[in-house]
């Protein structure tokens, strides 16, 4: 109110940063699409992951062709009919089973051949399952459940005075961290990595390219504002949105999906801050290198979204990949964050896992921010 403030080097820098950040934040608030991605997208993804994605199959429609009328064969057929995994009904012949399969009305056909009980008495009973390999994952799940039904049935019959069904060696298995085999436990890390990637990379992917396209960045260069300050002001508002998305996810994981948080919240927040910085820096780097909003948007899909979905290891096991592909997964930040999330949510504060993965994320963020600065500065000259 009383004239210009006295000139202070550090105060001036801070004031410039605050002014730029306020301007960026206002832009975010005024544009409904930012809020859509910061809030609506996480909520949609939480709902889709919570209710839409599941590898636990129930009530698979199944046709049973019973060609053997012995009590044994009927009994096996009825244990398929009683299984909660299947919605099984008897059909007259293999031909009608085949027709139902081709029409997509059933996902599998169980055939119990005429010599079933005779061969079973000789220790070589055989039932057949026909599935369509057009969806191989689904067919495998169906096969697994059908194997389970047959094994249970065999074991039950062993209990009725017959010889023990399995053995001599028995496997007693225990699955750590997820005893009840709850699929939400392994989907939540995937959910968080997708949300953080989308918020981070999508929001920043265009900001620098837009300034270049409109020539407003060059206008900024003639002001006392420094490159580092411009970059920081682009990061801060979106960082806030990202943390909001993270909070939504953690609350949903805890209270909607009942996933435990066995590690410390502080470690989870620290890991997420690092990953969010990597994602933001990746978006900024793409944006300032390509300087075209059109190309930047396509590149972001290819290097941020799809790798987070496919190469982060939340769904597919990365250890089993061929060497070259495994090396590629090390380039993308997703795998480090998924390892952190899986460990922090389900196992606890396992420092030998946490520290190396955090170190890699920190290094990636540093490199990407430095590159962004370098690319932006070069163009002034």
């Amino acid at each position, binding site marked *: 109110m009383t004239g210009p403030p006295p000139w202070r080097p550090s105060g001036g820098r801070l004031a410039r940063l605050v002014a730029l950040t306020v301007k960026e934040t206002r832009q975010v608030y005024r*544009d409904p*699409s930012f809020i859509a*991605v910061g809030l609506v*997208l996480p909520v*949609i993804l939480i709902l889709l*992951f919570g*209710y*839409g994605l*599941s*590898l636990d*199959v129930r009530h*698979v429609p199944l046709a049973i062709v019973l060609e053997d009328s012995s009590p044994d064969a009927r009994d096996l057929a009825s244990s398929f009919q009683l299984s909660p995994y299947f919605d099984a009904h008897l059909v007259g012949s293999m031909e009608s089973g085949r027709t139902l*399969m*081709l029409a997509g009305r059933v*996902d599998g056909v169980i055939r119990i051949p005429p010599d079933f009980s005779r061969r079973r*008495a000789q*220790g070589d*009973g*055989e*039932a*057949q399952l026909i*599935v*369509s390999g*057009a*969806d*191989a*994952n*689904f067919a*495998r799940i169906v*096969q697994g459940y059908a194997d389970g039904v047959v094994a249970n049935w065999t074991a039950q*019959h*062993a209990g009725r005075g017959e*010889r*023990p069904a399995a*053995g*001599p060696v*028995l496997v007693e*298995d*225990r699955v750590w*961290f997820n*005893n009840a085999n709850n699929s939400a436990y*392994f989907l939540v890390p995937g959910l968080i990595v997708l949300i953080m990637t989308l918020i981070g990379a999508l*929001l920043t992917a*265009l900001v620098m390219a*837009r300034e270049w396209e409109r020539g407003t960045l060059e206008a900024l260069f003639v002001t006392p504002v420094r490159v580092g300050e411009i970059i920081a002001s682009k990061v801060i508002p979106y960082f806030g949105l990202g943390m909001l998305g993270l909070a939504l996810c953690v609350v949903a994981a805890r209270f909607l999906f009942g996933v435990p948080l066995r590690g410390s919240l502080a470690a989870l927040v620290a890991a997420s801050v690092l990953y969010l910085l990597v994602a933001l820096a990746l978006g900024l780097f793409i944006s300032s290198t390509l300087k075209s*909003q059109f*190309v930047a*948007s*396509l590149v972001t*899909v290819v290097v941020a*979204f*799809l790798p987070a979905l496919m190469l982060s*290891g939340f*769904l597919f*096991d990365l*250890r*089993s*990949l061929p060497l070259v592909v495994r090396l*590629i997964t090390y380039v993308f930040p997703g795998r480090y964050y998924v*390892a952190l999330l899986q460990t922090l949510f389900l196992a606890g504060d396992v420092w030998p896992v946490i520290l190396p993965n955090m170190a890699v994320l920190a290094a990636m963020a540093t490199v990407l921010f430095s590159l962004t600065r370098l690319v932006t500065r070069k163009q002034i000259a």
Partner: protein
Amino acid sequence: MFQSLARVWALVVKELLAVLKDPRGRATIFVPPALQCLVFGYVATFDLTRVPYAVDDRDRSVASARLIHDLDGSGVFLRVAETARPDGAAALIDDRRALLVIGIDQDFQRRLEHGQAAAIQALADGRNSNTAATALGYLNTIVGRFNADWRAAHGVAGPPAVRLTTRAWYNENLETRWNIVPSLVGALTIGEMLLVTAMAVAREREQGTIDQLLVTPFRPSEIMAGKAIPAVLVGFGQSTVILLVAQFWFRIPFAGSYLDLYAGIGLFLFAATGAGLLVSAFARSMQQALLFSFLLIMPFTLLSGLLTPLSNMPRVLQALTLINPLRYMIDLAQRTYLEGQGLAQLTPDLAPMGLIALVTLTCAAVIFKGRLA
């Protein structure tokens, strides 16, 4: 009519030049689908080929050595450590060094020789419970084979076992790659289609060049066709790249007719482009076009049946998938490519995609006209 076609043609040529003249644009359109198809073809499988495991063999007998030998020779299990202490097992799993820790009791061989059941303990890392279940399944198969060998060698009569033999149609070995890679024809192109169209229109709007177009004799519907057709042509190019990788790199046998498959791809591309134009009708800037596109791409991808079966979903979500063009494209790709079904069986996929294309393109045209008039 002829003049209108000529005008649209001119626009199409201009758009294609705008995208393809720039080497960067060319690269971003054709290289990523090929690379992604290669990488995802290897990634997208639930089969395990390297399961790091540790063993705590307290028996150190011929029998236990034989079992461990069977595991090592399976080609799936990789022995990373031998552990003697129980807390060693916990640390190995916590640190993710081992996926499985197998414990063999001291009396393992003695019990086997006395005809008693001998238990082995298997601890699995359940952070990805799916992987853990698969690894335990493999372990059970190997132990089952060990049991059969043991019974055969020691003349023990087997139980009245029942085998379930599986026959899989169209994909004998149930290779996930066989159904994932052809599905990528839809899954990889949908994002590109939406973005290419939505961003192209938003760019014209942002740069103000759309106003220049409006003072020309072009009608709004012609401008729209000029945006949609190049995108569809680009999509055909991308799909072809993916199909080439599927057939010549992964050598997945093609069972159907190319004509049917390309008919499906065409309808799908128009449906996806229609969705992109609809997005662009609501987007005021390129930033908004990108973000709104993702509000569609995410649900389209997750509710397509690509990664998890559609029949698992609750009714409400299953109903929502009915407006998802990708769902039909993936079904159609699998039906033609693997099953070799003809046009009659493909109608349940073709008809909805055609309808979606019609509705989205019409709505986009109406909104577009309203906004510009």
